[in-house]
Each structure stands twice: as structure tokens, then as C-alpha cells.
């Protein structure tokens, strides 16, 4: 089945230690998104890629970076995680921009110690 896969599902990192979260998709969608969702809050868009075109949200901290080496994979890098970065990180894809339906992966739960 075509799907959005996130690895790992759970990640524990130390304060200030860089961490990378991975997302892959078999849907062949052009757009990939990264959201941060803290407990009891709505998902917050960090950035998205339309093909190779990177689009950063204005309020996304510089501590968060992303890479998309090919259509199938997208990575979220947190350069120096703080305690406030503990959250669920959701990857989503859509066929195109323009409000096409987004398909979400299972998420990675990040804990910062």
C-alpha cells in the first residue's frame, strides 16, 4: 500500500545533541510537509518542500532545518534541541500545492532529556 513512513517512531535525545528525523513516501507526491505538534495543541507547520523548492514558515526557529534529497525522502534536522522542542513531529505529503489533501505519517515522538 502507498504510504507515508516515519522513522524512528520514538526518539530520545539529549539537550543540545543534534537529531534527525526521517520521512519517506511511496505516493510519489510532489509536496512534503513537516509539522510540530505539542501536547493538546494543533499541528503547527514548520516548512514544506514543493519538489526541491523549500518553503520555510516565518516563525520556524533557525534551529530547525530540512533536507529533501529526492522525491521520496525528507529529513528534519534539529541542530540543538531544547526541552521546548519535545513534541510529536508529523510528516505529511500532498500530490500538489493548492489545497490538495494531505496524507499524514504516523509521527515521531521526540523526547529531550
Amino acid at each position: 500500500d502507498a504510504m507515508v513512513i516515519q522513522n524512528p517512531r520514538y526518539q530520545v535525545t539529549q539537550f543540545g545533541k543534534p537529531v534527525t528525523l526521517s520521512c519517506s513516501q511511496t505516493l510519489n507526491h510532489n509536496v512534503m510537509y513537516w509539522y510540530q505538534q505539542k501536547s493538546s495543541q494543533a499541528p503547527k507547520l514548520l516548512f514544506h518542500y514543493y519538489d526541491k523548492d523549500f518553503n520555510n514558515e516565518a516563525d520556524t526557529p533557525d534551529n530547525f532545518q530540512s533536507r529533501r534529497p529526492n522525491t521520496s525522502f525528507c529529513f528534519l534536522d534539529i541542530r540543538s534541541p531544547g526541552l521546548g522542542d519535545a513534541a510529536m513531529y508529523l510528516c505529511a505529503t500532498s500530490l500538489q500545492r493548492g489545497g490538495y489533501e494531505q496524507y499524514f505519517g504516523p509521527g515521531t515522538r521526540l523526547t529531550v532529556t
Partner: protein
Amino acid sequence: ELKVEQNPLFLSMQEGKNYTIYCNYSTTSDRLYWYRQDPGKSLESLFVLLSNGAVKQEGRLMASLDTKARLSTLHITAAVHDLSATYFCAVVNSGYSTLTFGKGTMLLVSP
């Protein structure tokens, strides 16, 4: 800037009762999504509403969209425990092609 407001934010219901969740948004948009999220899980797409007057139904849930009033509703009929979850509406930002989510409605259905 697009703002999306959901209410109520928390809803405790008895099984068998009906209720409606409301989603208001502040600027013009012609596409709205409803998602369900179980605790610790990802988002599951429920409905895509694409035009004014759109109505979609799946089981005990029915969603509608009024683009003139900038309002969507999610109506629950004869609630059952399995519907307990958090429900989010999300509105497309025209021109930006991204979604803005409401804060979510946590629904608890008890016997």
C-alpha cells in the same frame, strides 16, 4: 492572516446523544478538511469539503461547509464510545497552499 476557531474545545457526551462541533475561519477559503486524532496517534482524514454547501457523511458523522458564513460544522448523531478522539478542522490558506488548523475539539463519549 487566516485564523481558525473551533468550539467547543472539549465536549463530554453521553452515548446516544447528538451534538455539533463548529469551525469558523476568518478569510476566504473554498476548501476545508476535518481530521480525527486518537491519543498518541497521527491524523486521520475524515472529510474534504470543496465547495459552498458541500455535505459529506460517514457513519455517525456529517460535515458541512458554508463558505459565505465561513463556517463548517461536524455533526455527531447518536454518539458511541468509539467516536472519542480529538477532531481538528483545517482550512486551506488561499495563495499559500498550506493548512491552518483549529485548536481541536476533544470529544469524550461515555456510557
